[in-house]
């Protein structure tokens, strides 16, 4: 992983984008001992339209707090794809939820992660954000597996903890290829 990585999660209100972003920040800043900054859209922008959660993770102090050129973009909403796709760094990692995002025909270098289907199989499609997060962590190594597990344990409500830990593992395993055969 490079010294600094910029990550953007794009979706629509209610999908748990902000929670996923906060978990990334916590995992990096509290359990991996790195620097991390989290920002998100506020106000009218965040209601109805495409919302974003941005995280910068770095080995050194982060001065400017905003993501300008994400190396990782995960989107769960068509409008978020349209809005944020052009900002992705060349050779950046793009992850989409294929039930919610139809990529442009010429946009081939991307990962279609059926996060909703995987979450449904685990018992609740609302955990799709955490499946997506698991994939993102496995593929980008922005934070360690253990740091993210710890962040989930310390943050998520007891009622959803088991589901979210399983969702995280499922997404992570998709990324590292475990269980493919």
């Amino acid at each position, binding site marked *: 992983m490079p010294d600094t990585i910029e990550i953007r999660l794009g979706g629509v209100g209610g999908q748990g984008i902000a929670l996923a972003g*906060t978990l990334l920040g916590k995992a990096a800043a*509290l359990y991996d001992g790195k620097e991390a900054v989290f920002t998100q859209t*506020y106000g009218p922008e965040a209601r109805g339209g495409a919302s974003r959660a941005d995280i910068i993770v770095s080995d050194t102090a982060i001065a400017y707090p905003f993501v300008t050129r994400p190396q990782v973009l995960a989107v769960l909403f068509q409008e978020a794809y349209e809005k944020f796709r052009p900002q992705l760094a060349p050779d950046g990692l793009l992850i989409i939820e294929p039930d919610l995002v139809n990529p442009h025909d010429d946009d081939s270098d991307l990962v279609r992660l059926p996060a909703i289907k995987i979450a449904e199989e685990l018992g609740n499609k609302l955990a799709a954000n955490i499946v997506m997060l698991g994939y993102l962590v496995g593929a980008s190594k922005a934070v360690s597996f253990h740091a993210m597990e710890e962040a989930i344990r310390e943050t998520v409500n007891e009622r959803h903890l088991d589901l979210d830990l399983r969702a995280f593992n499922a997404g992570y395993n998709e990324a590292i290829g475990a269980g493919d055969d």
Partner: protein
Amino acid sequence: MSSKAAQKQAAPDSPQRVLTGRQFMLGDHACAEGALAAGLDFFAGYPITPSTEVAEHLASRLPAVGGRFVQMEDELGSIAAIIGASAAGARSFTATSGPGFSLMMENIGLAAMMELPCVIVNVQRASPSTGLPTMVGQSDILQARWGSHGDYGIVAYCPSSPQECFELTIDAFNTADRYRIPVFILMDEVVGHMAERVEIPEAKDIPHVPRKGPRTAPGTGQFLPYAADADLVPPIAHAGDGYKVHMTGLTHDERGYPSLTAETHDKLVHRLVDKVRLNAADIVDFEEQDVDDADCVIVAYGCTARSATAAVTQARAEGLRCGLLRPKTIWPFPEARVRRLLEIGKVKRFIVPEINLGQMRREIERLTQLPTLRLNHAGGAMPTPNAILEIIRS
């Protein structure tokens, strides 16, 4: 009440007053936690973006550790309530943004005149008027200094990170009590709404500066509530302590009684201003990056200072002798430090980026004839490191 804050620690099975440890939190929440750690007793406020998270956080946290939270009818009520609570000895606090700050101005003057300590955080958004409620601004800098009518002294802190939101809020309470003044925390939307790691020390390591109390017993008639010591700050007796105290916004003598003469007024107002002005060396707080050999010094605060930090780091990598002076107290302004830099004589120009049309730049221009370059945005966006870098290179 404030001096008993330490003893008001909640029972072992209750939520902690000081959230010791490493947290990942919003600047707004870190400000609220700083107030709790400082021994906050009483919060009265009216929610307004982008400060709402301060009130929201305290609404659940403060009552759980034995304090009082009141949502008021508006900002006029909020400031009046915290001044009243302060007269009863409470460490009191409110949170607002530009429009609410404007509404508080009259009673901020009353707090200054009655010398009742209180802390007000203004999480700045793009102004004037309703402006851009959810977007960043830094345009209340001069309002904080001069917003209420008349001459009086105040202190204003400008944090650049959630960690500083926590630390400077504690400083704000101590400074308010030490000098019996209203103290402001001028945050901005970017710092308020970003989350970073915040390290919270143990309760015993939180600095606590108590108010000076009377040195004579109640009932003796010897206590003069507005007789100042050599530091120009009078000891304070609180409602219920048993002393006879009269407080008024009218010009008053050492007994606190109205004394409507030019002589009393001149003496009183000079003291209200001088207790901050003459103690500035103890109050002023700033940080520097690479200033010692710099021929170009950026002066920046709040979120803008973060872009300036990135710009200075890049400029140094390019071999440019550039540095950053970052006021953590914007009032009093670190004037002595700027004068010293001018005496040393290495600085050839200043750059002042701000999310307003040049409010702090006036301070630099007042102190020097050297070129003072501007980078101003009216609000809604903060200057980028590259924009500052271009001016450094020019």
